[in-house]
């Protein structure tokens, strides 16, 4: 009994330590996020609208799609890879799920499952090719990106598949209690992803393979299995994002998710994950996603021309990565001096 109690206490200590580290590692972007929020709260134009429960939930609802993708993308990038197919998977999975309801009268549950499975299938395909061959992930997922997008257009003939039932809207536009459904799903997905990354052997293996694939193999890690898992997970997340978005838009649209892979990559990178692989945290990605989402929302509230929004978003990404670069540079300098 005593032992159990003390071990429980140390788990709390580890958790506290983990939070402390999360705070310390992400200090730069946490401050950036707070500055952004404070600026929007005190600005006379946005003060009334930004800090309302309705707007915050609205922002989170919008962010959820990007963060689903970013969860998979964080793993992929830590693994040292990239997944360009996720944006197109959103389109295909949404269209097929909507089509299942409208065209074949399948039950809602089955339709949604189809949507998720479409994502998983493409992810599995990416995983098989990337883990069995040496074709670069960039090329493989560039190909599946085009294939998925093409299939979405072929299936829909280019026009949205509309679904008007109330049940259909629940997933993306509905509420559980007073909280939007996607926000609930997002919290679950984030927790699951964080657990995989931090609490399982697979999580460690992802960092190991991304850090040094050859050393991972020498350590008895089944590298191809790890790659396979990560791309499958990324596909699954994209499938999930697809049905949630299709639900929110009352339709499966072949144009949905266009460029979404880039927003996901941006969230991951702003969150401090290294494009070189081997290093990064899901905790950083969450903040990265929030910054990009709130920035979008803020610019909309400020009535900034949508063309200029791209310019500002690009500058913010560059700035965030540049700050990280300076920090890294500083670290390296210290490393050299120790040597």
């Amino acid at each position, binding site marked *: 009994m005593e032992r159990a109690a003390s071990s429980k206490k140390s788990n709390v200590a580890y958790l506290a330590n983990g939070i402390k580290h999360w705070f310390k590692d992400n200090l730069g972007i946490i401050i950036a996020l707070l500055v952004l929020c404070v600026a929007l709260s005190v600005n006379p134009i946005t003060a009334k609208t930004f800090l309302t429960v309705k707007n915050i939930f609205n922002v989170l609802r919008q962010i959820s799609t990007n963060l689903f993708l970013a969860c998979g993308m964080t793993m992929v990038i830590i693994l040292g890879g990239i997944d360009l197919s996720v944006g197109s998977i959103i389109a295909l999975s949404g269209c097929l799920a909507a089509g299942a309801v409208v065209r074949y009268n399948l039950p809602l549950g089955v339709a949604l499952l189809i949507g998720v499975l479409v994502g998983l299938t493409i992810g599995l395909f990416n995983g098989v090719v990337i883990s069995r061959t040496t074709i670069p992930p960039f090329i493989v997922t560039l190909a599946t990106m085009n294939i998925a997008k093409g299939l979405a257009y072929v299936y829909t003939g280019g026009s949205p598949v509309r679904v008007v039932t109330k049940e259909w809207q629940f997933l993306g536009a509905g509420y559980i209690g007073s909280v939007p459904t996607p926000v609930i799903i997002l919290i679950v997905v984030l927790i699951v992803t964080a657990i995989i990354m931090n609490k399982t052997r697979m999580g*460690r293996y992802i960092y190991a393979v991304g850090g040094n694939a050859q050393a991972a193999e020498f350590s008895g890690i089944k590298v191809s299995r790890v790659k396979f898992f990560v791309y499958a997970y990324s596909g699954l997340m994209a499938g999930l994002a697809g049905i949630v978005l299709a639900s929110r838009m009352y339709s499966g649209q072949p144009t949905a998710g266009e460029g979404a892979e880039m927003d996901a990559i941006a969230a991951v990178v702003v969150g401090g994950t290294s494009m070189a692989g081997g290093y990064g945290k899901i905790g950083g990605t969450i903040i990265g996603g929030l910054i990009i989402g709130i920035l979008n929302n803020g610019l909309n509230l400020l009535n900034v021309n949508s063309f200029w929004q791209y310019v500002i978003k690009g500058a913010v990404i560059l700035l965030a990565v540049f700050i990280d670069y300076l920090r890294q540079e500083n670290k390296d300098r210290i490393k050299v*001096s120790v040597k």
Partner: protein
Amino acid sequence: MGDRLANGVLLQMKNIHKTFPGVYALKAVDFELRAGEVHAILGENGAGKSTLIKILGGIYTADQGEIYIEGKKVDIREVHDAQKYGISIIHQELVLVPYMTVAENIFLGREPVKGGLVNAARMYEEAQRLIDSYGVNISAKSMIRDLTIAQQQLVEIIKAISYNSKILVMDEPTSSISEKEVKFLFETMRNLTAKGVGIIYISHRMSELAEICDRVTVMRDGSYIGTKVVRETTNDELIAMMVGRELKNYYTRDFKKDGEVILKCENISDRKMVKGVSFEVKKGEIVGFAGLVGAGRSELMKCLFGLTREYTGDIYIDGKKVVIRSPADAIKQGIALVPEDRKLEGLFHVQSVRFNSTIVVLKEFIRGIAVNRRKEEEITQAYIDRMSTKTPSMEQAIGKLSGGNQQKVMIGRWLATSPKILILDEPTRGVDVGAKSEIYAIMNDLAKSGMAIIMISSEMPELINMSDRIYVMCEGRITGCLNHEEVTQEKIMRLAAK
């Protein structure tokens, strides 16, 4: 040799100071190089050798101190300045472009030009002439990536020499080449010194000093300790200068007579480098594997460790035939492999000592999603203690430790699997003397506890002083087995070059 020491002074570095934020890297270091001399710089990792060289090469600038070349004070602020004063540096890591030819690499950045275009014909012709003049058998048209590491090193040296340098710096040039190529390298060095070139030679290998060096300067903790004429000093004196204390037993080894055979390999082949190799290893034995680079030693171990899927032949462990198709299989059979190239095959650089220590034994503390952090830290700490690894904490990124401490973590990683058979491929490469001696002592302890150890090494003294038996390999075959009592360097060389 005596007359060489009377030659004019080529280079003088006086009272060099260098600080980095928080660290005093060089404190009042003096160094002198005469024309036609090979002058070694000795020191453990972190002694400041590389910093000194980088100041000479214009990569760093000294905070204080003067550099004189042939008596004239010079100001070296960037790499270009160093080249201007005839200084060439061959770095430890090869910096050739793999997808370019030998000639393109040699003339990189100063290609002969004709009418605004690269004059390829002249470039290849000149490169080939240069290569031939050193009696090297390499085509100027070969792609760098198709050459062996040793050949690449030679290209690097030829490239450095082709600048007509007066001062040549070699940073551990023999760390990745075989005995035979070392001989060749030394010959080339003698040719150069005969022409009046001064060579600064950085190496961890004491055995090379007597063979090639005239003088040796010892550094420790960023300070200048002293300069000795090589033939007037002893290894023991130099080691004492390097570590600042007397190392009593450099090699620790209680030789063992008989144990049961734990590993028996019959007719192992990998259809490439390994051709029908049979050998056995007993409990409590340290078995050395000698041979030149490319003899197939590392490849043989890769078969044993499941890294080569297409091997043929039989492996018996404790008398039972086993099939090993993956490292996971090998680990299950109680085999551990500490690989040759730590950086490439071992380290997860950005990750912590803890992560690196436990990656092979995650099963012991992660079940499903339950991580027993305390157990993890216990395991990590146990092997930090066991290996006496010096690290500020177990959360320290392993990339920031010295080579010796990194190697200790690598060995600890595999000891954590409680192996029956431990394969060490070049266990002390890039490891400083102090840590080397500690690693030898640990190997001895492990063997005494009954572990069977296989050691591949290119360092003769280490093989001879640590192994109960030494198998010598040549071109994929075992050409002989020498017992501890009978082994000599000459016997090994004869078998290795059969």
